[in-house]
């Protein structure tokens, strides 16, 4: 005997009819219309394409992506992977892409943290805190982002020169050349330790999932933290120590005109990051506030009545429901940060737009250059969207 009864009507298939080659057949009409529309769109695209190619030829403008293999000859100030002006345009564009990702990813993380704090502060019962958060949100959202970027950049340029650099703590220098920090000289041992940390994080995650699953079965709590400590701290440190525990600090030092050594954060990057973070945090704060307010007050009261502590109320009851409201608009903000990072050209941060612009200017291949920029932003944005949609689906309330 089956557990559930199934409505027999849902099992009935619609009657099958043979396809009649007649205009009176709905399906034939649908197919004809679709072929027609696809054909028209295809013809327009082909027409635009062939005309473009023809006109480029007539104007003797070079076409194709052959330029990607040529020597770029353009200097780039900030590069995550090694680069010299003798490298190809392809590598230069890759540096630009990495620079865009560097500012977008860090910006997304910081804006989320900062925005969430401001959003919670806005809801605070502390009058001053809530008013400050309110004023911040209103001011920052109402000023054009480009203006804010130029403002931050101008402020950073107003810092003293490298020879009069501000020197708050040993090894830290703040000047109009940027922020200089001491940094360890990277060696293989550090890479191994980092790898161990990543593997440890993965293992901890699986262990935690398993612990929760077992707890649901037998109700026994299994603490995750000893495993986490072992995997995330002890193992990497042990590997680092086993590899000889290299520890050479690279101190920044004024030599000639500039600082040498250490970790550098340029004023361009800092201004862009600051501008993007503070601007987007204003929007995120409002999204977070809306999300929290969207959870009915009864939910708090009910959770407290069950005897949950206030941290548990937030974590187990309110946040899961608030996130449902928060995630979709948050996706738009993440996309905005990524796209707004293209304003970097105004303050001289060499992101993908800046480098692609220079490339298309030197090679004269504007269409290819713009196509590359579009491809890059489309790929980043689609990746963010896909990830956020997946996450959204994961945390959505399971409805019956």
């Amino acid at each position, binding site marked *: 005997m089956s557990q559930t009864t199934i409505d027999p009507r849902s099992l009935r298939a619609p009657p099958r009819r043979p396809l009649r080659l007649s205009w009176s057949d709905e399906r034939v009409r649908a197919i004809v219309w679709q072929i027609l529309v696809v054909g028209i769109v295809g013809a327009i695209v082909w027409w635009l394409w062939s005309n473009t190619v023809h*006109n480029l030829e007539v104007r*003797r403008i070079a076409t194709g992506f052959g330029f990607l293999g040529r020597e770029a000859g353009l*200097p780039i100030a900030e590069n995550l992977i090694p680069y010299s002006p003798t490298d190809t345009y392809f590598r230069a564009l890759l540096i630009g892409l990495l620079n865009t990702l560097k500012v977008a990813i860090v910006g997304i993380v910081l804006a989320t943290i900062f925005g969430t704090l401001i959003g919670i502060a806005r809801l605070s019962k502390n009058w001053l805190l809530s008013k400050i958060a309110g004023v911040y949100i209103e001011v920052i959202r109402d000023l054009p982002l*480009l203006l804010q970027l130029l403002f931050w950049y101008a402020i950073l340029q107003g810092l003293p020169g490298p020879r009069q650099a501000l020197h708050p703590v040993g090894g830290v220098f703040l000047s109009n050349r940027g922020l200089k920090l001491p940094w360890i000289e990277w060696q293989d041992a550090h890479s191994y330790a980092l790898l161990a940390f990543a593997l440890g994080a993965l293992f901890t995650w699986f262990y935690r999932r398993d612990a929760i699953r077992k707890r649901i079965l037998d109700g026994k709590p299994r603490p995750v933290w000893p495993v986490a400590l072992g995997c995330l701290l002890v193992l990497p440190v042990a590997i680092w120590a086993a590899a000889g525990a290299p520890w050479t600090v690279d101190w920044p030092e004024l030599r000639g005109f500039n600082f040498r050594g250490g970790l550098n954060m340029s004023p361009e990057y800092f201004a862009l990051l600051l501008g993007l973070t503070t601007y987007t945090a204003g929007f995120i704060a409002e999204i977070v506030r809306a999300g929290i307010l969207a959870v009915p007050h009864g939910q708090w009261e009910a959770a407290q009545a069950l005897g949950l502590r206030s941290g548990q109320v937030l974590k187990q009851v309110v946040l899961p429901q608030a996130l449902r409201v928060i995630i979709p608009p948050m996706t738009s903000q993440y996309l905005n940060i990524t796209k707004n990072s293209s304003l970097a*050209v*105004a*303050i*001289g941060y060499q992101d993908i737009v800046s480098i692609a612009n220079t490339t298309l200017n030197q090679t*004269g291949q504007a269409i290819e250059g713009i196509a590359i920029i579009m491809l890059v932003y489309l790929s980043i944005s689609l990746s963010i969207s896909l990830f956020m949609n997946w996450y959204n689906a994961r945390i959505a309330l399971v409805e019956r």
Partner: protein
Amino acid sequence: MPHFGLFLKRALGMAALGLTLAVPGLAQAQQAPANTLDAVRARGQLICGVNTGLAGFAQPDSQGVWRGFDVDYCRAISAAIFGDPNKVRYVPTTAQVRFTALQSGEVDVLARNTTWTLSRDTALGLDFAATNFYDGQGFMVKTALGVKSAKELEGATICVQPGTTTEQNLSDWARANRIRFTPVVIERLEELVAAFVAGRCDAYTTDVSGLAATRSAQPKPDDYLILPEVISKEPLAVGVRQGDARFADIVRWTHYLLLSAEEFGITQANLDRMANDPRPEVQRMLGKNGELGKMLGLDNLWAVNVLKAVGNYGEVFDRSLKPIGIQRGPNALWTTTGGLQYSPPFR
């Protein structure tokens, strides 16, 4: 907010290029490459791409009237075509949008401190009609820095405009001299100079003429020093779209006219008197004899109109570039002082 205008302009320029290349109907409306002269005549206006603002070369004065060396070339071409130097619309172009602006037909002629190079001449769909200024790339530093030679710039931060030959010369030069530097690349000249003045960079590099112009525009020019090294050849030339030989001829011979006029001592002031000069070449040039103007597809008195409007090359130079401290140097006439400026005969 001038920046929004700039970004909008760039976006529109790109869109216009895409559209004109993609849609033939629009392409014709924006002048096909082969008949710029007809299009300019039909429009009643020459559209001239100039710098966004560089003292001596192209800059609006306090009345909003564009003035400068390159601007005078736009005025001269307008006078050659229309007999009136004021039928010009000036389109300020940044270093990065200038070629796109010319390719897409947004401007007819580009008189904007543009270096003539082989790759630009071939792959960019433009032709350089005439070198109106021989320049070279140099460096400027603050006097307080205590640097006397570009060779001392090891480790320096250097301000440079992107998308220029300057940018490529800089990395070539640094490689050849084993000098490491950090570039700061900002597209807008005003922002770039502001960054240099604020001390973001130790040195600012561009063509020596541009350095002189920037230096003269500072409240205290003596605080800045142009270093003696000239690291490149920068023949700054007036560009037109490729494949329009007739229009290129007009631009080229307008330049030669200015040179020849200086060579023969014809000035704005003595133009009327010179009309009766007995020398045969002067008579041909000024349309007294022969049909040189008609051969160019212009009015036979085109030369008179041009010289009345702007004067000869020396006058154009002295009006705009002398006040900012630029010497004639290589831009002197070959015939008189052995410079590089040389006109083929008007015959």
